């Protein structure tokens, strides 16, 4: 039983420039009392998320859409617990797994096998779980003996195979995905899509941020549109009736343009 509830969640963060991030400025502001505090007010604050209300339960399949910078990634990071909301309340029940920022913790000097252990453990697996995921990863990536070679010898496509395989090795209850199915050859694309389908099917709650309308229609049942950090629309996705295709695609295309 997984659940994720957000009540009036907001994320605002200051963007420090060199002046406000330096120690000198802080020391000067101590020595000159209140006067420089006006300068401190110049620290720009970005309101990345504003008053987000969501209640996600078992079986929810959410597609997040919106322009670049509309807050999709920030929302995913907040749901994942990486960003702590500066406003509002939040409840998360269930094991959260993320498929974004692939490659965090990867060391190109180490072999494929060693990187599998590193990254799987970083994503929350124990060393045993990480090692037991190896046969599945060997089979999925088809990298063969390259898995025993340093990752720096891999092509971009091979690295994608490895990263994608690791990210989808552990089955989570809540799955958060920031569009990933970009690289790789056609055969791998197809394979990745299959694995993704299985992966999504097992998760209780699934959230995907993407600009690709066909991915949305394949994986999601509900579409949430963000604009300037606010939810502007929240509607069900009609699953692909052929005669209605234009109508279903059109609103999504508009946002990705």
């Amino acid at each position: 039983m997984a659940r994720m509830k957000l009540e009036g969640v907001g994320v605002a963060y200051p963007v420090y420039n060199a002046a406000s991030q330096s120690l000198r400025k802080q020391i000067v502001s101590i020595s000159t009392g209140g006067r420089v505090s006006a300068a401190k007010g110049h620290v720009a604050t970005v309101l990345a998320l504003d008053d987000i209300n969501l209640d996600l339960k078992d079986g929810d399949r959410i597609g997040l859409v919106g322009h670049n910078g509309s807050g999709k990634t920030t929302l995913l990071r907040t749901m994942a617990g990486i960003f702590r909301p500066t406003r509002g309340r939040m409840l998360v029940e269930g094991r959260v797994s993320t498929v974004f920022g692939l490659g965090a913790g990867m060391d190109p000097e180490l072999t494929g096998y060693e990187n599998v252990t590193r990254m799987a453990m970083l994503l929350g697996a124990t060393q045993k779980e990480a090692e037991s995921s190896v046969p599945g990863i060997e089979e999925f990536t088809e990298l063969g003996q390259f898995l025993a070679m340093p990752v720096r010898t891999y092509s971009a496509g091979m690295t994608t195979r490895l990263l994608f395989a690791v990210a989808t090795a552990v089955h989570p209850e809540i799955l958060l995905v920031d569009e990933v199915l970009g690289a790789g050859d056609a055969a791998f694309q197809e394979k990745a899509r299959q694995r993704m389908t299985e992966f999504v099917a097992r998760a209780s709650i699934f959230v995907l941020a993407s600009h690709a309308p066909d991915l949305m229609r394949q994986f999601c049942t509900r579409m949430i549109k963000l604009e300037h950090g606010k939810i502007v629309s929240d509607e069900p996705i009609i699953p692909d009736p052929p005669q209605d295709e234009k109508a279903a695609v059109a609103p999504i295309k508009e946002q990705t343009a």
Partner: protein
Amino acid sequence: MRLRCGGPRTYTPLDGGSRKVCVNSIADGAADLAAAWSRRQLAIYLAWSETVARYRRSTLGPIWLVLGTAVGVVGMGFIWSILLNQDMQSFIPSITVGLVVWQFISGVVTESPGMFVKNATMLVNIRMPVYLITFQAFGRHFINLLHNLVVVLAVFIIFPHYNSWASLAALPGLVIVSINLVAIMQLVGIIGARFRDLEPLVLAFFPILFFLSPVIYRPGQLGAAEAIMTFNPITHYIRVIRDPLLGVIPSLESYLIVLAMTGVTVLLSIWMTGSRAYRLPYWM
């Protein structure tokens, strides 16, 4: 189940308030520390694999590290024992342990202000305890220290007259200093992520402390300037590890100073983690 909220002291659990996860900064920070400790296996694996990766392409691998220390010890040992008119028999063991401990402390402290910035991709993409990043960074330095112990061992085989059971008193000293260094790393790391001037500041000024620490000199050789050395905490870190190895019982004063520093920095780092560390991803 995990609960999160808009900052310290504002937790209002949605499910009726039976589980208040974080009451204040100290509890928050302690929870982070406990979470990191329960995943120490990962920290060790990260530290170890990074060390391995660094040496994989060189033929001599980890021997380079040991060799570097050995060359430093032999070179400095000979030159300074001649310059300072010292007896090599007692001077070389002293400078060896002093140098190895100094390298350990200096490596940890100079890395800390840039540590979180260097691990930015992990911080913004993976939810993990903040202490875990410190653990793995400290782990690398500790592995280096273990390498260097080979040099210490060799020197003590060549100059054997110090060996006694009292030498084991160096172990508790090393443990306290290690705990202290982890706390300093976390504390300086968080401040350094927010104030980017801290890293060049530490890099510029920390080496001066080398000359204010009893690595080359020994107590009694500085005369009137000795007082400065007493105020340098690193002096006492070196003493509680080195003195037992040289057959001297460290002074109570040194132990008290190291313990007090450890207590204060551990508490400060836990408080800082609870009250500020959640902002780290925003500062990257």
